[in-house]
């Protein structure tokens, strides 16, 4: 799978040109086309008692967005890339879905969800909504740490956390096409404590050996595709261990397959990929299941 065209969804506060710039290494893997999308939430221009529909506010917000997009587009056009832009008054998820339908991008880039915990519990986060409704990878971008510095090249040292699911397999298939882009890939699997059949040392070592062999085979496949890959087995709570590994190996990004749980179960119990995408400091590349 190639990433030739990406959809860059921005509200400008959380995702700016520096974030886009850090993705331009994907040009070595045939990225040629960027589509910008700015969605002005309806409540910003909605009918208010006494003032009616805020047409002037809509025009002002659209023009502000247009000026930013023109500036960004000029940079990309000068590199010989193709650029498109949408500025719409709408609701975020429905507009993203509409543009995906029209433009058929290979990757969606979006900032972290701004909904609070309670709001997410009842209405789900934007990220969860998107991962359930699109069949292409989603990069949840964020400024790392408090100083809001964007990593210069987020594909320089990514961490792939595989659960051996079909969505993890989709991630592997895509990453194999990024040999000129990825610096060093760390590949990990977390054995959860419930999967350790007994606390006997011998049994635990057997599980570790089995998982390590699977990871070795996967890393061999990456190396055949021209990607330097290092395997790691962790044991414990998957969410905590993935974040621990990301810190230990100074990951520039975490790559995960999305949960295949049903929607109700996921809403109340959460999912590892959603929790990491929503809460961690790392940019997260989420792959939906190919099934």
């Amino acid at each position, binding site marked *: 799978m190639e990433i030739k065209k990406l959809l860059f969804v921005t509200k400008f506060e959380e995702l700016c040109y520096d974030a886009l710039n850090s993705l331009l290494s994907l040009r070595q893997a045939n990225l040629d086309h960027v589509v910008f999308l700015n969605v002005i939430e309806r409540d910003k221009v909605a009918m208010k008692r006494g003032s009616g529909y805020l047409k002037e506010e809509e025009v002002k917000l659209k023009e502000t967005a247009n000026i930013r997009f*023109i500036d960004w587009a000029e940079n990309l056009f000068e590199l010989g890339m193709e650029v*498109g832009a949408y500025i719409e008054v709408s609701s975020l998820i429905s507009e993203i879905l509409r543009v995906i339908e029209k*433009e058929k991008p290979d990757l969606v880039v979006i900032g972290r969800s701004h909904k609070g915990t309670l709001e997410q519990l009842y209405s789900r986060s934007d990220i969860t909504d998107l991962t359930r409704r699109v069949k292409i990878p989603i990069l949840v971008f964020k400024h790392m740490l408090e100083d809001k510095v964007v990593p210069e090249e987020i594909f320089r040292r990514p961490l792939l956390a595989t659960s051996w699911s079909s969505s993890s397999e989709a991630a592997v298939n895509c990453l194999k096409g990024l040999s000129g882009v990825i610096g060093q890939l760390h590949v990990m699997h977390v054995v959860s404590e419930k999967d350790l059949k007994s606390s006997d040392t011998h049994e635990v070592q057997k599980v570790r050996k089995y998982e390590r062999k699977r990871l070795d085979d996967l890393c061999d496949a990456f190396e055949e595709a021209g990607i330097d890959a290092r395997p790691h087995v962790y044991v414990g709570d998957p969410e905590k261990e993935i974040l621990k590994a990301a810190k230990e190996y100074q990951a520039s990004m975490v790559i995960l397959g999305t949960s295949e749980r049903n929607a109700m179960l996921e809403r109340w119990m959460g999912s590892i990929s959603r929790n990491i995408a929503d809460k961690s400091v790392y940019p997260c590349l989420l792959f939906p299941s190919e099934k």
Partner: protein
Amino acid sequence: MSKKVLVVDDDPDVRSFVVTVLEENGYIPLVAHDGVEGLEKIQADQPDLVILDVLMPRGSGIRLYRHLKTDEALKDLPVIMFTGIALRSFLKSQKALEEFNGEVPKPDIYLEKPVEPEELVRAIETKIG
């Protein structure tokens, strides 16, 4: 007989402005919302002139301009670029694309938005009378 002018622009306000200017000056306006629709209308309606934006969804004016200038049947169709993208960036983009796809002539008329109606009319008259 009135001449047909195709306006390719995704911004409804800009389309409306250009259509009004065209109608008031005796031209027949045609409209397209993006690069893909623009090419379809050029092939179907055979306009006498195209007024072309650059930054649009579904195919930019940069690629459409290149397509027109490298197509044997369309290369003589007059084009006025009418856009917020600076000429400097437009020329640099063409230069970057030339490395792979060959050279195309520079646009004769490049108008940076916004323009007064008189300036637009002068540009149109220069190309098609």
